[in-house]
């Protein structure tokens, strides 16, 4: 974020001290379906916040509630400190980049980008200057007279972004902006969006169901599950300290093992996983049954001869991926299918081999059962 207090225009909204977006117990019902269930969060100005969650959890609905394309059934929505709950989309200072880009097919690139400025009633000269500026910002100078149908997918996407930021909205919304692009372009466009957001200190709310994308671009991530917020935090917090099994499962390919938490001793507790016993931060999880989230690289495999005090397992799949190995290991106690990666590619474990499984205490985290 830009922490200089210079004449940067967006600093005004930062100074005001309001969150750029605030949800207070917002609910959205479609008939009997509750798409968003009394959720609340704050989004700080100048940050990129991602809404992440499985399909149907209410991400798009939340985004549309911010935009004013849906009217909340309950609760309050504030933008920059002003209650906008009853305002229509046109009256909110929010722009949106649509999944399908939604470029107006009967207008050329320039007309598309200047649409919002014209709707605001600005003078023609100013409209054109501003639109041209934003077009060059997204690298599309020279394409002004093209029709949307004459552009590639990535270019259409950039026109959509230019059209949205030309109004310098208080909040910019993206609904799965990369889903129509191929894998390589995704990475690039993702980085461009992030770069633009940081350069202009935009407040962005970004919807995706791809956790890697979320980790890569976000200042903060709001994980949603069945119409509610499951966890709200920085990427690091979510990865290292998932609030629930669900979050741990959703963020990265964590293995979840049944574990038993023993007595707390200060910050740590003794945790038993099958025959293993580890001293781990208890994170205020009460003694009793819980789950252990184990990242694939935290699974240490050794030859079975070395197995004292370790979990016994058997390799059921092994794949060579150049710089690392990927294994699937079946264990009996605790009963699990572990997904493991190993940097040692020179002495692989064969499929069918009995192995001793240990866990790196640095890369495992205790989570409460849901």
């Amino acid at each position: 974020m830009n922490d200089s207090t210079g004449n940067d225009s967006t600093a005004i909204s930062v100074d005001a001290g309001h969150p750029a977006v605030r949800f207070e117990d917002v609910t959205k019902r479609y008939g009997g379906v509750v798409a968003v269930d009394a959720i609340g969060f704050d989004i700080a100005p100048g940050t990129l916040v991602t809404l992440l969650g499985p399909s149907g959890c209410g991400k798009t609905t939340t985004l549309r509630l911010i935009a004013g394309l849906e009217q909340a059934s309950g609760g309050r929505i504030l933008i920059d400190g002003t209650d906008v709950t009853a305002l229509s989309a046109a009256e909110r200072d929010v722009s949106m980049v649509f999944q399908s880009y939604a470029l107006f097919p009967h207008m050329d690139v320039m007309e598309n980008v200047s649409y919002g400025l014209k709707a605001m009633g600005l003078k023609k000269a100013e409209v054109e200057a501003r639109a041209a500026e934003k077009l060059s910002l997204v690298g599309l100078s020279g394409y002004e007279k093209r029709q949307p149908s004459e552009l590639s997918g990535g270019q259409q996407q950039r026109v959509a972004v230019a059209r949205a930021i030309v109004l310098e909205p208080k909040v910019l919304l993206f609904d799965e902006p990369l889903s129509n692009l191929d894998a390589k372009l995704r990475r690039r466009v993702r980085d461009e969006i992030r770069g633009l957001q940081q350069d202009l200190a935009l407040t962005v709310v970004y919807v995706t169901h791809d956790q890697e994308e979320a980790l890569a671009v976000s200042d903060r991530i709001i994980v949603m599950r069945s119409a509610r917020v499951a966890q709200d935090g920085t990427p690091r917090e979510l990865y290292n300290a998932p609030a629930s099994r669900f979050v741990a499962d959703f963020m990265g390919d964590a293995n979840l093992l049944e574990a038993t938490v023993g007595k707390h001793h200060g910050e740590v507790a003794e945790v038993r996983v099958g025959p293993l016993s580890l001293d781990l931060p208890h994170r205020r999880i009460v003694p009793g049954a819980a789950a252990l989230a184990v990242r694939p690289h935290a699974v240490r495999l050794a030859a079975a001869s070395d197995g004292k005090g370790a979990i016994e397992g058997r390799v059921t799949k092994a794949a060579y991926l150049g710089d690392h190995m990927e294994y699937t290991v079946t264990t009996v106690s605790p009963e699990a299918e572990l997904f493991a990666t190993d940097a040692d590619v020179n002495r692989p474990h064969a499929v069918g081999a009995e192995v001793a499984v240990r866990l790196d205490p640095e890369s495992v985290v205790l989570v409460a059962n849901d």
Partner: protein
Amino acid sequence: MTRPTPRLESTFPARNVGAWLLLAWAGFLIVPWYIVEGGFFSFGWLADFASHGPAVLQGLQGVPWLLPLILPLLAATWLWARRRTAGLAVAGGLALAWMAVEGLAIIHSGWGFSWLAELAGTKGPVQPGMGWGAVLYALSMLMLLAADFAGRGWCKGDRFVVGSLLIVIATLVIFVAYPLISILSSAVRDNSGDFAPALFSEKLFSGSIWSVDCLAGGRNCGVAWNTLFVAVLVGLFSTALGLALALIALRTQIRAKWLLRGLSILPIITPPFVIGLALILLFGRAGIVTNFLSVHLGIPRSRWIYGVAGITMAQVLAFTPIAFLVLVGVLQGVSPSMEEASQTLRASRWRTFRTVTWPLIRPGLASAFLIAFIESMADFANPLVIGGNFNVLSTDIFFAVVGAAHDQGRAAVLAIVLLVFTLAAFLIQRQWIGKRSYVTVGGKGDGGVPAPLPRGLRLGAYGIAAPWLLLTIVVYAIILVGGFVHQIGRDNTPTLEYFLTAFSIEKGVGGWFLSGSAWPSLTMTLTLALIAMPFTAAIGLLTAYLLDRQRFAGRTLFEFLAMMSFAIPGTVVGISYILSFNVPPIQMTGTGLIIVISFVFRNMPVAIRAGLANLGQIDRSLDEASLTLGARSFATLRRVMLPLMKPAIVTAMIYSFVRAMTAVSAVIFLATGRFNLATVYIVGRADVGEYGIAIVYAAVMIVLMMVILVGIQLLVGERSLGRRRAGAEAMPIAA
């Protein structure tokens, strides 16, 4: 960099509310409240301001019941000054309610309700119909109501949407629902206007409607049975023919585009009675075929065509194209890949047709049947021309009003019976068969080659369709040449006599003028149809927009009311307009306005369908993008939707124009000497046996409309569809 001007202003729409308030005050203080003799736009009322005065003057001079209307105005103005919308709905609602109450309670002849007269014991005060002042006042009050509703978050707080919704609903209530209610209320009253339930049930259950004498060897069955009988016959024949034609057009080598094109245009441009007329010329007592048979084969002349046979034949010829269109849509919806799948499973062609295709098109068949059934019952002109002594409901309604009997009560009762029949068929068609079968006309199938028809079926289809096609060709040939010979069938020497009588142009003292007898009605029809055209398109497309893009409580009911006018027979519309708009509060009979209004609301469903089909192809995210860019819904409609809806606009305009030109059943009640219409004129000529002029006129109309259709199609062409590829694939947001 400058920040954009803030988009959040005060949420009170001061300018909007202020403007409507101003208009309401004008309607109350300046513009004449009542109808002005000689027309508002003659501005004669300015000279005679005191007696043609605005509500406030009238109120002070003996019509005190107008004075309360100032209270809502004052209240709304007070709210405006305090920058509040909450409460405007109460003011507006009270104003409209009071207008309805005083308008219905006090009419030109005294109390509007007989119980009021009994209560008061006097004839009561009188007032004429509402004029422009009342219209302005009511419209403004409606819009103030909308401002309040929008302020409460209706339709996402969008004033334009709420306002349009209220306007469309109000017009539907006034011009669709209110006339229907008037029918009911005059059905239960006797001719002097008193409540007479006994008379009503006597009329409703009278033998002339329900008798089944003909089954027991008597001469006549009730008119309801007659109507149903013909309608069922027509439904069955039209569906069978339509299916045969659709199968030929889509599933045989003769995939003739011209057949499709021709068949889809014919029913639109043909005035409905023309076919009946042609049948008389062919099979009437002096018809061509009859002559031939009697001269060469000695078969005696008879009047068999005048009655069930003639009506059924004419209607089958007229409505088969409609059944055909429905079934083409249905057949196109049957994905060839399903049939291919069946064939790869080793099913024979016949088996594939029987087990895959047939079940898939069965709902479509029912739909085609019901549509032809409705059309047959609603048809007025063919039974009038060719029905002879065989009466059906629609003609009986007409004769009950214009005939010597002049029994409005009986007309109303007959109208109710007819309406119940058609509405029931309409409801069944919608509920039971669903919407898919008639919306998909012109829908796209996926790849793959449709299975060819089994041989037997193919021959059957040819066998059924060929006679119909032949007869159709003969009918149109007769229409086109019949008016240019002396007496077709008897004296086939060419003549321009009829054409000149109808369409001559002469040079007189003041220059050229249209001296032919048909010109006045033709120009009048063109004028009124042209005036109705943009309004029909506008209100129909607006309704389609509201239906497709907005969610609001009562949407289904709204859609039903809007589409219902499809199922209201023209005769019922005609009689209901006479019953409701002949007297205050809304007095319009004898004007061109009422004809235009009947055009608009009769043809509105066509525009709605064109709009819905078009809107279905425009991704919702386009309007949402526009909204989030700060354009309100009106700007969005104008700058994004309208340009993309060009095809629907053109379709709606053409169809509403052409249908207005060919309409007869409703307007035959509404046309007057001054506002005479082409179709009414033709029916009149045919009625007195002047077939020459009638046919020449019909031919001119058909050619004229063909030219217009083709011309517009060439002019607009596929151009409007040129660059119609939205940004990317359709997006599943809020599907």
